[in-house]
């Protein structure tokens, strides 16, 4: 009761659009339906666009088993999504930085149940403050967020959150549901023969899926798992909370963090949930290491 009232106050006082507070899967699915309906109506334009941007993989995505995607399916999808994101913001051209992030990320990912995935980590050239995960082991963090970090434990915590999304297949599950709806929409409009095209379109605009609002519980789960993954790797478990604490200091009016705020619960809420999760358990968190000395500092331009 109290909580509901709060959510309403929060939304109206900050004049956020209602969907910004709606982290529910239902909302995401509704978006998917509307988008697909649009795609089917605008088939002509879509065809033109497809002709001009032929992809080397051709139609490989059409063969994905949506009912139970294999690991290979997952990686194919993730590659497509990550590649789209990189189309919007390319990698920072700094091999030493990219190698550093891969070493740290790979070690944290190795503490998860999906150490077998081909993990890829990258820092993208954007002043936005955000991080993204795509199925199959693709993790991207913006330069804007990276620059706010102070040590390796904080980096491990942020990457741990994204790794957790992939381990739990959070985005993959949204894509699967979206795909089922897409096929359903095809049947309804009598265009089922174009099913493959619809699949292309869903994934073609897939960069956005990695930033889309997940179920709120999925975000809290990724925080809890990310903290533990970093701790398992030997890092100070408070790295992720430190970053959230720092993000809580940024005004929600700051455009560089708008998307993160829209797609995730407020940092204060996430901290609170983590506090609850760590205080209600008999588990005592290890001290771990912050590893500050070798943290790769990204100088300002």
């Amino acid at each position, binding site marked *: *009761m*109290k909580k*509901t009232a*709060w*959510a309403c106050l*929060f939304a109206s006082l900050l004049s956020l659009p209602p969907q910004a507070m709606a982290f529910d899967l239902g909302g995401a699915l509704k978006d998917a339906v509307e988008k697909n309906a649009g795609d089917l109506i605008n088939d002509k334009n879509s065809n033109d666009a497809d002709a001009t941007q032929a992809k080397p993989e051709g139609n490989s995505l059409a063969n994905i088993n949506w009912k139970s995607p294999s690991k290979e399916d997952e990686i194919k999808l993730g*590659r497509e999504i*990550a*590649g*789209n*994101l*990189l*189309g*919007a*913001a390319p*990698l920072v051209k700094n091999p030493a930085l*990219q190698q550093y992030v891969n*070493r740290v*990320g*790979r070690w944290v990912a*190795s503490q998860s149940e999906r150490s077998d995935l081909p993990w*890829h*980590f*990258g820092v993208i050239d954007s*002043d936005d403050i955000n991080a993204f995960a795509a199925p199959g082991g693709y993790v*991207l963090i913006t330069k804007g967020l990276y620059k706010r970090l102070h040590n390796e434990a904080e980096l491990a915590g942020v990457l741990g959150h994204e790794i957790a999304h992939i381990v739990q297949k959070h985005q993959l599950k949204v894509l699967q549901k979206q795909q089922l709806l897409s096929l359903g929409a095809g049947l309804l409009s009598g265009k089922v023969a174009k099913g493959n095209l619809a699949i292309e379109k869903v994934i073609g*605009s897939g960069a*956005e899926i*990695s*930033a889309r609002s997940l179920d*709120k*519980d999925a975000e809290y789960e990724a925080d809890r*798992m990310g903290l533990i993954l970093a*701790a*398992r*790797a*030997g890092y100070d478990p408070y790295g992720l*909370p430190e970053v959230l*604490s*720092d993000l*809580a*200091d940024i005004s*929600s*009016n700051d*455009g560089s963090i708008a*998307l993160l705020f829209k797609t995730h619960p*407020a*940092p*204060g*809420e996430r901290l*609170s*949930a983590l*506090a*609850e*999760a760590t205080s209600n358990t008999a*588990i005592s*968190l*290890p001290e771990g*290491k912050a*590893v500050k000395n070798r943290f790769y500092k990204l100088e300002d331009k």
Partner: protein
Amino acid sequence: MRYFLSASLAAILFASSLAQAESGTALKNDTLRKEPYNDAKTSGQLKRGDKVDIVRKQGAWLQVKSAKTSGWVRLLSVRRAASTGNQAAGVLSVASGRAGTGQVVATTGVRGLTEDELKQAQFSEPETKLLESYSVSAADGAQYAKAGGLKPIKLGYLPKPVATQGENP
């Protein structure tokens, strides 16, 4: 402006839920600060195991008092005694809780990655190949960790707290 309004409302509403003092224990050594910000002046030190009284919450911070010292400490550095689900709702905290101090975050007008930009993004094969070229093996990751003095430990995942994400209590 809206911000101030929401913060003061928040303060009023929190006051009722925190009418009686809570106590807690420091989970780690941490710095106490005069104000609830990372760059605020230091007002003391908290040692792991120190008992404190919790005066109030603001954003990601707790104002605490101990026999020796007082100040603001990061929320996660203190384990609250007899914590219940309801208190967590209070820390909804209006995103930052820094309103009223006059501290302004630099808004450089940098435009972020918007959803539209992401929707319109085109797949980049060269960038994807470049990303994949930086990957390292599990063994390389482990070796780098070892070089940094990191030791892996066994640790279970944190269970989902019972009351935090529930609908209404």
